């Protein structure tokens, strides 16, 4: 066969290459995509049609209402008049004028208008303080600013004498100094000093000292009580404070719960289970109704502060469970490796176990934070004016009596943006910390 190949001209052989042809229309481009993704089988085609109907149903109801939205009016009846005039009485149109009219109230509550710059500046400082913590690409030196920023924010929001936050912050410095001085003597003494000295200082020295200094050098801005706080500002204050405080507390609780020490372990379990077994709303009522019973007679402190403490304890219990899962997922060899290196308990936790455990627990921790931030809306039931509480007071005015959807949509959107951003950040962090050891 091989020697005759070139001579034979067989009708069955093709001599010229075929023209290249375009693929069939069903196998390319949009048609292919539609066929594969929307109509691969009969069942899928039906589902697609149903889904299209659902989307059309929702859009046909919300779309015109949203697009016809009226932004410029002074009251609901004015809104309706404008609608009747331009679109006819049957048209559906949102009255977003209420947001244009009351957005300041929804954002700041009853905070004095002349001082709006303070929470705004505090918000910017909060973002700037968070940035170095959240993103590793920012120079580490900025972390100093992050450490200082809570005191600046406290001063800006509550006002009063500048010396109060200064002397409170001094407590941390004193603790560090005590630890440094006593560290030369004994490690245990250093730890005890770092804890006891600041507590004694805050309890007995800080505030009187601040008052004395304030009398000598009065620097300060107008004090604003937290009962004037409201709206998204209140949600962010409660949410951020509780997030920052509950993470360390939750980690300590998780370590206690995973501890070998019988008593410590049982106490941690009792605390966590009691907190988690009861709804937050019951804890909030406890904070507002009962907490005074358990304090020394005559003491009475700020409701917002009480709420922050309760929410912190609540979310710390949840974080403890998440971190416990992370601790359990660290292989036993890591614990044993740390022991075999001669590290003591805190060293092995700090250097070996917790970095791995926390990495595993990131999604859970962020979910807890998202839940916490959403739960700040519950404070409306104990009389604090969060955004949802303010909708009631807006509706109570004659101008905006009977307005619901626009306010709910606006508040929902704000919460959605914040919570969605947190969720995205957790995904980013997970990707960043992923090691190539799979």
């Amino acid at each position, binding site marked *: 066969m091989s020697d005759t190949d070139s001579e034979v001209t067989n009708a069955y052989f093709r001599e010229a290459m075929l023209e290249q042809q375009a693929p069939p229309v069903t196998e390319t481009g949009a048609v292919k995509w539609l066929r594969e*993704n*929307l109509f*691969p089988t009969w069942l*899928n085609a039906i*589902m*697609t049609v149903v*889904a*299209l109907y*659902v*989307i059309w149903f929702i859009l046909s109801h919300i779309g015109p209402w949203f697009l016809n939205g009226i932004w410029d009016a002074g009251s609901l009846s004015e809104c309706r008049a404008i609608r009747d005039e331009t679109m006819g009485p049957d048209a559906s149109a949102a009255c977003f004028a209420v947001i244009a009219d009351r957005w300041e109230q929804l954002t700041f509550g009853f905070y004095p208008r002349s001082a709006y710059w303070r929470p705004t500046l505090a918000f910017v400082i909060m973002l700037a303080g968070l940035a170095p913590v959240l993103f590793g690409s920012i120079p580490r030196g900025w972390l100093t600013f992050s450490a200082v920023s809570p005191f600046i924010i406290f001063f800006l929001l509550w006002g009063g004498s500048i010396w109060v936050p200064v002397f409170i912050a001094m407590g941390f410095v004193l603790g560090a100094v005590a630890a440094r001085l006593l560290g030369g003597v004994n490690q*245990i003494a250093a730890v005890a000093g770092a804890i006891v000295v600041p507590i004694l200082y805050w309890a007995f020295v800080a505030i009187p000292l601040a008052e004395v200094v304030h009398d000598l050098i009065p620097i300060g801005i107008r004090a604003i009580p937290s009962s004037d706080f409201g709206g998204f500002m209140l949600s962010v204050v409660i949410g951020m404070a509780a997030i920052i405080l509950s993470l360390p507390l939750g980690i300590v609780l998780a370590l206690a719960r995973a501890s*070998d*020490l*019988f*008593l*410590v372990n049982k*106490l941690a379990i009792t605390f966590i*289970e*009691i907190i*988690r*077994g*009861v*709804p*937050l*709303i*019951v804890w909030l*009522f*406890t904070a507002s*109704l*009962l907490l*005074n*019973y*358990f*304090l*020394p*007679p005559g003491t009475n402190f700020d409701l917002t502060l009480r709420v922050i403490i309760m929410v912190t304890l609540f979310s710390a219990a949840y974080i403890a469970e998440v971190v416990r899962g992370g601790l359990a997922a660290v292989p036993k060899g890591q614990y044993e490796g740390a*022991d075999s290196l001669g590290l003591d*308990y805190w060293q092995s936790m700090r250097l070996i176990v917790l970095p791995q455990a926390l990495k595993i627990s990131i999604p859970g921790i962020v979910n807890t934070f*998202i839940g916490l931030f*959403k*739960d700040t*809306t*519950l404070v*409306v*039931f104990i009389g604090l004016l969060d955004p*949802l509480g303010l909708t009631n007071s807006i509706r109570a005015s004659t101008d905006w009596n009977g307005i*619901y*959807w626009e306010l*709910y949509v606006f*508040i*929902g959107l704000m*919460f*959605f943006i914040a*919570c*969605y951003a947190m*969720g995205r950040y957790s995904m980013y962090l997970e990707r960043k910390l992923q090691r190539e050891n799979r």
Partner: protein
Amino acid sequence: MTSITDSPKGGFHPRQLIYDTRYRSLTIQVVTFVLVVVAIWQLGSNLMVNLANLGQEPNFSFLNQRAGYDIGSGFGTAVTGYTSASSHLTAAYVGILNTLLVAFMGIVLATIIGVLAGVLRLSKNWLVSRLMAVYVEGFRNVPLLLWIVLIYAVMTEATPTPRDFRVDDAGVAQAYMVFDAVAITNRGVYIPGPVWGANSGILVAIFVLSLIGAFAYRRYAKKLLFDTGRLLPLVWPAIAIAFVPVILFYFLLGRPVGLDYPELGGFNFSGGLQISNPLVALWLALSLYTGAFITEIVRAGILSVAKGQSEAAEALGMRANRTMSLIILPQAMRVIIPPLTSQYLNLTKNSSLAIAVGYADVRATLGGISLNQTGRALECMLLLGLFYLALSLVISFVMNVFDNSMKLKER
């Protein structure tokens, strides 16, 4: 902490309490114990002093006093026959029943929504999976409280009044009932209610027996499959066993159970069952919100089953539905159940948000009106907390039993 230390030579030195690992754990625990006892003692003594100043002492006898307030009609009041002359204890009982009702209904609906949406989220259909993603993100990232008040506003503001159902002279009404049986109004949702005639007890007994029979059949068929490899049909015979006798006896006994349809009379509907709008709003919001979380749990559970498992099942020639029920789901369930349990717990605890719509749950009766009327904040909150704690423990226990039955049984 288990490192080996040299046994000390000579006597005991106090320094060993801190530096010797054998004694250190004891030291830490004793210090912790003392601190906790001091703290509790401090709180307790503060409490006693404060209560003495108020002239009160902890006392639960108020529970037997006349409550003196009305609770809107619903499941709890119907079961207990509560009136304003009943005691605070009965009022608490009404609240507990209402909480259990909405928690149970919510768990059922949230599970259905979550499983459906979780499977659809994994669908290859682009549009459907995107739609489910929007649902999940939309509900997860907005506070539950907002959903509750929003759905409640829809139920009360955007639904027709009973009067709109009236047919006018031209034979047209402004609103119509769904299937001529369900009326959604701003005063509540009216659905047909059952009417229990004579002999209806027998019918219920037969139904329970045939349900047990259906389960027994399934067990038998499974055992046969695992023992001998013979595969009996599973689905249709079980359904037949469960329903055929009931339907048969329903007609034999002369239709003992009827349906009472709601009818428009005067200004309102009468007959049927009225489900109050607070309950509907709370139920739907809890279910949709928790359903979004369950969706993600179901999705993660199904994705956690290694691809090799379904490929192996295909290689064995199994059909798709059997692969799902025998290979994928049993393995996915192990991943799904623990987080599902915590979602059920969350839903139950979140039912206390009933306060937003005025549904008479236990927080509203025992922790609300009873508390305000008697001024017994400490006692009421304590009982309320204990109730929720006990409920959480019961749900955890039931789900743990279920989880253990699903666990990998290693031989």
